[in-house]
């Protein structure tokens, strides 16, 4: 009798176990599309069976077994970091390269070409007032387009600074969410698939924003570092990053008025920009502090656009000032055509203007030797004259090299982005094969546990009947 009752209880426990297993299957199916979710399996264990000793056996459940594969997850996060970096680079470089005309129909290239043509026309008739005025007008057009380009680059840098701040804010928000996970995990050591899914979804989102290192602690919490050493989340504490824009002072600034750079600071205000090497934040900082600074300048470099503006102004002015306004005896010396702010090497492009005190008849077409259009001819060929200040390139080629450089980097970023999109998708696919929910597998398990439940229920019914008959036998 007592063994019948024990078997009855064992069958009841089996029904409970199968019901829990079915609940796990239901949870898996419900979360098949949940970001970060890993398939859970109910782990069943057989209870001891000893007929002679009175142990009736049975089945019990242990803790859930997660199919999560840390290696696969880390691989996905690595690819997401690169994806975020190349996405940011591609988008921002593509935006910046549109500032550089390559058709020759607008912008600095067009105005520069027109200036040289104005010099050439003037050389054919150096005393013509209208052709002199055309030279001045051409110079105004060049100065305006150079300043406009410099301003547009500054605005682009400002937009990236805003994006950096926004990205840092997103990082801090995700850090706070991970902190909440850690707090909950410290309070309740039992693993929760839902919280685990949320954690890993946040880690993936964070990976796309910045290069991170994750460390699983023994107490179940997750430590997250930006780069290798900047804390974001440790235990129940979150450490916020901040964004700032200021001029580098280490090493000492060469250009005291140079444009500031974008920086990321840790929770203590230390500059950790160098630690940010990947992710969307890394891509933004690269475009802002490397690519754009090489053109607009910063505390350490003049910038290629400023080099161009300075060389253009200096070479034109040098030729004009070396000559005379005409080949007549006693003619006045030429005046400089361009002016710019010489107090800092990074200010040339943004301040390039036509000398406000020059009139068209003060231009000097005659050279020092007295040739009536010697200077004008020299100015006309300036576009193809090698300049030592530009590394031996002429003004036209140097200007195109600025566009070429940014074009090459854009091309590389776009190519890398395409490759990384494929690689990331591949990594996710591999990860999903390991830990993603398979409806077919869940359906098979469902049938398995359904049949098991049905069988256990049938056994329970039989045992119940036997127990009842046994009781009926009692007089």
């Amino acid at each position, binding site marked *: 009798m007592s063994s019948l009752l024990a078997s009855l209880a064992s069958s009841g426990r089996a029904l409970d176990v199968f019901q829990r297993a079915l609940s796990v299957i239901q949870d898996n199916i419900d979360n098949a599309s949940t970001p970060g979710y890993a398939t859970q399996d109910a782990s069943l264990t057989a209870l001891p069976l000893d007929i002679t000793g009175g142990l009736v056996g049975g089945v019990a459940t242990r803790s859930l077994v997660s199919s999560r594969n840390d290696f696969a997850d880390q691989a996905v996060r690595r690819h997401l970091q690169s994806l975020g970096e190349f996405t940011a680079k591609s988008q921002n470089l593509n935006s910046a390269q549109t500032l550089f005309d390559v058709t020759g129909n607008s912008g600095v290239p067009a105005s520069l070409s027109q200036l040289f043509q104005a010099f*050439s026309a003037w050389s054919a008739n150096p005393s013509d007032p209208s052709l002199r005025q055309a030279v001045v007008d051409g110079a105004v057009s060049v100065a305006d387009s150079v300043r406009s380009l410099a301003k547009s680059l500054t605005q682009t840098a400002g937009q990236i600074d805003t994006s950096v701040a926004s990205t840092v804010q997103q990082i801090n928000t995700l850090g706070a969410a991970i902190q909440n996970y850690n707090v909950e995990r410290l309070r309740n050591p039992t693993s929760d698939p839902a919280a685990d899914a949320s954690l890993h979804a946040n880690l993936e989102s964070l990976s796309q924003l910045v290069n991170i290192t994750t460390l699983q602690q023994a107490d179940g919490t997750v430590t997250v570092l930006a780069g290798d050493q900047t804390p974001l989340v440790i235990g129940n504490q979150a450490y916020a990053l901040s964004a700032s824009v200021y001029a580098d002072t280490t090493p000492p600034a060469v250009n005291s008025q140079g444009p500031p750079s974008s920086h990321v600071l840790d929770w203590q205000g230390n500059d950790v920009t160098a630690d940010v090497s990947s992710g969307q934040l890394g891509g933004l900082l690269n475009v802002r502090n490397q690519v754009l600074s090489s053109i607009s300048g910063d505390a350490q470099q003049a910038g290629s656009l400023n080099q161009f503006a300075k060389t253009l102004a200096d070479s034109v002015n040098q030729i004009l000032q070396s000559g005379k306004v005409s080949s007549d005896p006693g003619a006045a010396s030429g005046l400089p055509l361009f002016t710019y702010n010489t107090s800092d090497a990074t200010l040339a492009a943004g301040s390039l203007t036509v000398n406000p005190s020059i009139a068209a008849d003060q231009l000097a077409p005659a050279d020092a030797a007295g040739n009536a259009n010697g200077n004008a001819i020299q100015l006309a060929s300036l576009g193809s004259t090698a300049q030592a200040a530009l590394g031996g390139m002429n003004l036209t080629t140097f200007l195109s090299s600025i566009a070429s450089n940014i074009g090459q980097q854009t091309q590389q970023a776009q190519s890398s982005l395409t490759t990384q999109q494929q690689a990331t998708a591949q990594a996710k696919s591999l990860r999903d094969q390991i830990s993603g929910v398979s409806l077919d597998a869940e359906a098979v398990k469902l049938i398995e546990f359904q049949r098991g439940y049905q069988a256990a229920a049938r056994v329970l019914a039989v045992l119940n009947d036997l127990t009842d008959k046994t009781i009926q036998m009692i007089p």
Partner: protein
Amino acid sequence: MLNITRGATEKFLADMDRTQSQIDKVSGQVSSGIRVQQPSDDPGALAEIATLQGAIGMNQQVQANLGSATNEVGTAEGALQSAIQAVENAISLGAQGATSTSTAQARSILATQIQGLQETLVGISQTTVNGRYIFSGDQDRSPAYKLDLSQPSGVQRLLTASSTRVIQDATGTAISVAKTAGEIFDPRNPDDTPATGNAFAALNALRVALQNNDSAGIAQAQDALKQADSHLNVAEAFYGNAQTRLASATNIAQRFQVNQQKQLSDLRDTDVASAALELTQAQTQQQASLAAQSKRTSMNLFDYLT
């Protein structure tokens, strides 16, 4: 095992995005005819493209300069032919006055005609093209001479500017295109006295000799006029040679332009045939990907369970 693989879906979408980007890019190239529309389209070609664009623009300006100079030189050549005609007329009139039967009165009348030729020659020295005095040298905003019969040469010299202006052709070679009125009509010795070939002085000498009924003076003036005629022919030859050089330079500039345009087109413009093929391939690939994706079964075991 069939998985709900978000990764596979993302891979498909990434492939479609890449294919669509390629289609968009090639379509833009075909419709615009331009392959290099932004720096990233071909960074390595930008320097050469910019150089060619600048060279084409400058070449066009050079051709305009050469055209303007050709007009000026043509005008100068025509003016010199008129000057030669005037001097030859003076020689003819001088020959009439030199005959032994010519009376003082007749010579006086001839002197008046010579004065008219002097006015003509001074007028020729003041020839303008587009507001420029083409025989005034580098000071081309003012005439170089005016008639002044009180002067020994019958003219007053207003300017002494030389002509240093040159026209540069497409190869950078300088072409001299002008002589001054002083060089043409009023050559001087180092002591500033009229030199051999001085047309102004020769004409004035003939006029004075005819007025003074001076047979010896008339004969001397005739010799001087013949030398002036030769000198003017040399000057005319200069302008003829300049015309030839300008025509040759214009021809070279035009051939340069054609060559540069072709080079630029080869670098910058779309190879329409290749682009159309690439477009067709990309569209075919896109359609095949969509068809393949649509064939992927979205069914699972649950669809068969009752």
